[in-house]
């Protein structure tokens, strides 16, 4: 019963909301949020993105999100920065 995963992504022009945050033009994209979803969690990293060569730099993480479906189905409590989930990284990465 191998676990299946869904990958989504969303671009942003800046770290804080601005008038074009919803629909940045390619040339204005500076950050890409990559999400990985399984039946148990959603894990997202917002990383630096270069629109000229379409490269994402996973060494340059601007922010992260981690939601556990069972305890937080509505994704209201981001535990990305909780030290407790270091074990979690080891498991998924």
């Amino acid at each position, binding site marked *: *019963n191998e*676990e*299946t*995963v*869904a*990958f*989504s*992504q*969303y*671009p*942003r022009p*800046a*770290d*804080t*909301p*601005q*008038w*074009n*945050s*919803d*629909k*940045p*033009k*390619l040339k204005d*994209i500076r*950050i*890409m*949020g990559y*999400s990985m*979803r*399984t*039946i148990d969690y*959603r894990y*997202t990293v*917002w990383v630096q993105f270069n629109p000229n060569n*379409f490269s*994402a730099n996973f060494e340059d993480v*601007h*922010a*992260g*999100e981690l939601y556990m479906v069972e305890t937080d189905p*509505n*994704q*209201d*409590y*981001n*535990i*990305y*920065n909780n030290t407790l989930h270091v074990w979690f990284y080891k498991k998924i990465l």
Partner: protein
Amino acid sequence: GDGMNVLFIVVDDLRPVLGCYGDKLVKSPNIDQLASHSVVFSNAYAQQAVCAPSRVSFLTGRRPDSTRLYDFYSYWRVHAGNYSTMPQYFKENGYVTLSVGKVFHPGVSSNYSDDYPHSWSVPPFHPSTEKYENDKTCRGKDGRLYANLVCPVDVTEMPGGTLPDIQSTEEAIRLMNVMKTSKQKFFLAVGYHKPHIPLRYPQEFLKLYPLENITLAPDPWVPEKLPSVAYNPWMDIRQRDDVKALNVSFPYGPLPYDFQRQIRQSYYAAVSYLDTQVGQLLNALDDVGLSNSTIVVFTADHGWSLGEHGEWAKYSNFDVATRVPLMFYVPGMTTSPVIPGERVFPYRDPFSHISDFMPQGQSKKVVELVSLFSTLAELAGLQVPPVCPEPSFHVVLCTEGSSIVRYFNVSEEKDGCDDTFRCF
């Protein structure tokens, strides 16, 4: 499903607010009826929660990092690679491929042609009233016309006396009759506009959702630990006349609670309006006697936030913006073949039908829209496109999403679901 026709229904901005997904408030009897003969995926996700990138992704079977379309302003064949599309593949395999309404996103991202002639056998149909979509057609309390977000209308007063989705249903039914006569196998894609904003729908559908029954989202606040980069400031609805008049602060608002409930009320009403269009389309499939030889796919390009996390619209990575309905009806596979002449999809009136939804097969597997291309190829008995190499810009035909037909046998699923409400 070898050699079967394909009816591909894609809905703009529809999150799984449907009876068959466990929503207790919505009236969606026709889509629920389709679900009762289908395998329904309860964890299906779009690759990006915005129209053009999501549609080009699932229609080419490539992820946005391969189509290199994250906005609305490039055409993948020029900008990334000359990727074959799902309809193009069916066309190359002997199908007549037809597009009605909003399948590709119009404009640059589909070469101002819905990728015709590559993808389609005949020029795609667009409803003539589509051009009025953002005009001032919403009657305000003062009797004047506005371009509002919340826009229940008297259809007889609308330009042309109709609405785009009504025209799309009429054209799709006409095409089904033509295909029936010509006895050619077809891939018919029907793209409905609602519940995309403006929430413009026949006003009678409001009766299904009295405002006193409409609640706020369960979590209508911006979460404390949400990174600011993750937040979507819902710019598009702010430009609508009724929202503009509220003078809501940027970026976090919030919208007045009463107006939040009005938006939710109209989203639900637009979903029931859409359900009647799907119901007429499927009823017509029965009428032309093709329900036993046509695969039906029902899905959406992404979801829509209805106030959760203090957000509206799509434009984020939240589940409410990326999760979509996804179901496949395959005669003889997801349901036993019906006796010729027996109706599979009799029209159900949401104003009178009492929901009696019985699940057929609910899969909880986490799946992606990028898998649609390979899945439909397998269901129709075509050779499944090969998995893409990394990178694949130079490869015309391959897919980055593997077929999910292997998950159709829900009974094998460890925690398969036979009780919709418990599952959802």
